[in-house]
């Protein structure tokens, strides 16, 4: 019984992948002749994959080099997002008045697309790099803000009563009770924020033309090398998946009984 289940767990994902490749091939031959088939994509991209660290000018680098550049940019934007988002979430969770004042603003800002923020960032900062970080941080912040606020609101009164009976100072209450009790929620927020930051990076790089996966993708579209678009798309997907796995491992560590 167990053996059969194991092989199914291996075969079914392979089947899914295979089916996608078949559909992709079919589309490239029958529907959209400009779309490279999986095989052509591989042939035209293998230099980037097999020599992932080569560098031949700013916009022509191995795929891992581009990935690294994008990851660094995402890391900066993400850290900025959680550095602002965590305290903001705490304030929203702690104070009803603060929540009343700023919750509507947040609900309005939250659905705004990175494509809308980026031009504003360029207007404010006049340079593409800070504008990209501004956009990533602003879009990626909300899951952290909302989850942290929810975590603070759901701290059990049992724990708070311990703090009250011991007459802990506000700082001590924050450090010993509120932050540890909120950590699992915070990390759920961080995981979602990182996913959001990775979504935004492509848009930010495309519009600013910065070297990275998104910038490369846009450049290759303009140079009519469509297979490299697909290379970028697949890489973006794989890295996004990897980041999410990584964060959920960290998240699980902070789950307290």
């Amino acid at each position, binding site marked *: 019984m167990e053996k059969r289940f194991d092989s199914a767990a291996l075969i079914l994902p392979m089947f899914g992948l295979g089916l996608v490749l078949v559909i992709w091939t079919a589309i490239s031959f029958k529907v959209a002749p400009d779309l490279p088939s999986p095989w052509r994509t591989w042939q035209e991209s293998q230099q980037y994959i097999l020599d992932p660290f080569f560098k031949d000018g700013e916009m022509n680098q191995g795929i891992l080099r581009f990935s690294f550049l994008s990851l660094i940019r995402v890391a900066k934007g993400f850290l900025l997002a959680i550095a602002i988002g965590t305290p903001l979430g705490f304030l929203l969770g702690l104070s009803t008045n603060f929540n009343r004042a700023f919750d509507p603003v947040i609900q309005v800002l939250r659905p705004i697309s990175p494509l809308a923020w980026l031009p504003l960032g360029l207007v404010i900062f006049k340079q593409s790099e800070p504008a990209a970080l501004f956009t990533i941080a602003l879009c990626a912040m909300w899951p952290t803000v909302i989850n942290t606020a929810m975590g603070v609101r759901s701290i059990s009164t*049992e*724990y708070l*009563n*311990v703090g*009250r*009976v*011991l*007459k*802990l100072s506000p700082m*001590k209450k924050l450090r*010993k*009770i509120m932050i*540890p*009790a909120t*950590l699992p929620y915070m990390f759920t927020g961080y995981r979602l924020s990182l996913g959001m930051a990775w979504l935004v990076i492509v848009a930010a790089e495309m519009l600013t033309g910065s070297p990275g996966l998104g910038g490369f993708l846009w450049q290759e579209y303009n140079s009519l090398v469509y297979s490299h678009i697909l290379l970028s798309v697949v890489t973006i997907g794989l890295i996004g998946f990897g980041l999410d796995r990584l964060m959920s491992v960290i998240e699980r560590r902070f789950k*307290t*009984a």
Partner: protein
Amino acid sequence: MAYLELRGVSKSYVRAARSPSQTNGKLPVLRDVNLRIDENEFVCVVGRSGSGKTTLISLIAGLVEPDRGEILLEGKPIDGPSPDRGVVFQNYSLLPWMTVFENVYLAVDAVGPHLAEAEKRERTEHYIRLVNLGAAMKKVPRELSGGMRQRVAVARGLAMDPKVLLLDEPFSALDALTRGTLQEELARIWMETRKTVVMITNDIDEAILLADSIYTLAPGSDTTLGPAVRVDTPHPRSRAQLGGAPGYQRVRRETVSLLVTAGKDHAGYGTPAKGGIALN
């Protein structure tokens, strides 16, 4: 002068309206509760679930404010919660992200922030050993059984070095054997420390084993305390010796009858005492 005194304490909770046509009502819980406790006395309050026992302990702890009446400790009105009324909560309320040591240390540090670090550690270990958990200092609550968790909660309560130790049904979630052991340990610890204790329980035998005075809380809402039943058997008492003691049956009968008759004055009470109170 009584050490801890409750004077005409009443408490109602706001009952939220169930439909728009209703208005928010008041749900009276305790009415005109009077209680005088001497220093070093062990007092038990016995009542069924829903009789406002936890409300009573929360009032003394200062976690909720009375609507009317006042609570005095050493003649001074209490002002909110404080470690001088250390609480051992019914559900232990240990902080799950801290080890046993850290949970107890938090209390030691809160009441003696000026103490030297070594002194704080020593006190913490002292209280943990007092409840026989010396081997579990580095464990987190998740790794402990219910009985062990409750020991940690008792250690933390004692570590506050309170003037009055408040115990809210501390053993109700434990199996009978563990409960028996912990009751005897609590009796031993009380003999050693001679704290003033107010303990809430639904177990008459537990009350008779531990208390100097037993008060009953009638079931139902809007209830008040019955008269004190004195337990004169000297400490330390043992379960075996209690059963044969001459006063035992009388104390038990009085307590049970207070629980039953007191309840008859109140609406919504129609069945004889059972469930929470063991009659056999």
